């Protein structure tokens, strides 16, 4: 064994951790090597220095602090900690998340009218198809689904009644005009008023497509105007092959009758969320005989021209919806003046009728969508 080999074993030799043979070999070398004996002694002294170090003591109060840290906090505190700690990080993140979700929901809802109408397509289409198939003049009692739809429409009707309250003179005139309308039965309306004692009677029923408004809790007037137009278009797509025109009338009649006899259990007195009254003066539900789009360059001038036309031809403006970029006029034009009315419209702007049956009633109900 060399000196190097022997000194590699010094640490274990000091700790008496060598196997018997190893120890014998090291001891044999030490017996013949004074340098290694001296080196081993210095090694022992070094280890002795180390082992003479005073032991360290934990700081005062250490045990109490450990026990406190180990004690489980009450569950409300643990919950709050998990939710809000570290608060400089979690609170801003949670607040930002809430704001983002809210903004996202609003943007998606506003930016996607198909979402707003999806409820209409899903819920009203079957009922409307069923109604269209029923050709009897006096429809049987409304189905539960129609009753539900009717109650929704009643709510919108009550809102329109509020709007009418804000324009009482025009509304009274409009009611007088609507009185002879055969579709709106007076007796069912009275019956409905009894059933809906707590709510004001609906001034006018709404077209079925208005059902989708249930999905729109807050609507601004201009938004409402756009929505009315969209409702018209959507309903036209869903229900408006020309041959179904008479069915549409019957469906409307059924709809009105179902409205006047609300379903048992239906929340006739359900509170109506107040909202800004749209610029709808007067109302009548019967679907128009003619509808179309009048594209113009100067809308104000055209509105004046239409007003003059209405006065000259003995027509009546029964409804108006104003929005910043669209106006919807509902007019009643005598059949004998209708041809001239259309010619004059073509002079005022580009008239594109979307619905114009070959045979017209004595009083033609026309819906104009005036747009730039």
């Amino acid at each position, binding site marked *: 064994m060399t000196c190097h080999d022997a000194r*590699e074993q*010094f*640490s*274990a030799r*000091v*700790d008496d*951790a060598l196997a018997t043979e190893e120890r014998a070999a090291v001891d044999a070398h030490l017996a013949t090597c004074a340098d290694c004996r001296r080196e081993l002694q*210095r*090694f022992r*002294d*070094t*280890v002795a*220095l*180390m*082992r003479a*170090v*005073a*032991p*360290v*003591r*934990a*700081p005062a109060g*250490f*045990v109490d*602090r*450990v*026990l406190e*840290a*180990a004690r489980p906090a009450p569950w409300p505190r643990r919950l709050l900690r998990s939710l809000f700690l570290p608060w400089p990080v979690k609170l801003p993140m949670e607040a930002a998340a809430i704001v983002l979700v809210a903004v996202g929901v609003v943007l998606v809802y506003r930016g996607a009218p198909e979402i707003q109408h999806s409820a209409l397509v899903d819920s009203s289409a079957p009922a409307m198809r069923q109604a269209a198939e029923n050709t009897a003049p006096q429809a049987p009692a409304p189905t539960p689904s129609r009753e539900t739809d009717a109650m929704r429409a009643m709510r919108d009707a009550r809102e329109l009644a509020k709007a009418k309250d804000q324009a009482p003179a025009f509304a009274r005139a409009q009611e007088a005009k609507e009185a002879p309308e055969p579709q709106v039965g007076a007796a069912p309306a009275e019956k409905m008023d009894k059933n809906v004692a707590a709510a004001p009677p609906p001034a006018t029923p709404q077209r079925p497509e208005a059902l989708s408004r249930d999905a729109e809790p807050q609507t601004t007037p201009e938004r409402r105007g756009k929505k009315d137009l969209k409702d018209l278009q959507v309903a036209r797509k869903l229900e408006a092959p020309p041959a179904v025109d008479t069915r549409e009338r019957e469906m409307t009649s059924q709809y009105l009758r179902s409205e006047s006899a609300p379903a048992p259990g239906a929340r006739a007195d359900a509170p109506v969320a107040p909202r800004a009254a749209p610029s709808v003066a007067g109302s009548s539900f019967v679907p128009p005989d003619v509808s179309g789009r009048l594209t113009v360059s100067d809308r104000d001038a055209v509105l004046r021209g239409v007003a003059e036309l209405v006065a000259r031809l003995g027509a009546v403006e029964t409804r108006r919806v104003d929005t910043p970029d669209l106006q919807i006029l509902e007019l009643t034009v005598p059949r004998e003046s209708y041809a001239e009315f259309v010619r004059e419209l073509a002079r005022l702007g580009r008239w594109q009728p979307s619905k114009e049956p070959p045979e017209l009633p004595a009083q033609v109900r026309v819906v104009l969508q005036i747009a730039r």
Partner: protein
Amino acid sequence: MEGRTGDDATLVDRLRRGDPRAFEDLVIAYQHRVFGVALRMLNNRAEAEELAQEVFLRVHRAIGEFRGEAKLSTWLYAIASRLCLNRLTSGERRMTRQGEETLTRLASSEVGPAEEMERSEQETALHRAIAELGEERRIVVVLRDLEGLSYEEIADALEIELGTVRSRLHRARMDLREKLERFLP
């Protein structure tokens, strides 16, 4: 540290049964040893206390996993050593290693100002020499020469071979012998 004491066996049983006083007894019994290892390794009292507290909290949470094959003290040293080495090598230390001033305070950590003045140069040099060892050698020296663990217990605690323990310990002592040459008789 030799052999598993009857006190440790009883303590482990009480801990497993959920005796509320058992954990307190464990902390009281081992606080100085665990804190000592942490202080020798980290050279910072506040950081050492934080780490020692974490050691006991881990024991508190994981006492059910203690199989009893090793001594309770070895298990505690294993946890403390692992946490120290992880902290030293992971770079997550919030307090940087201190210089000579800290080493001097470490040498005189339990004495008053007057005694501190009398603290020998030898002891200061000794603590500095330990602090200057590499982490893997330092933990072996601390466990062997300051805490008195056997080679086998060190191997268990650090999960290394016996030969590795012997080799690291020898290199560490050789370093210390050179640095403490002038203090040797």
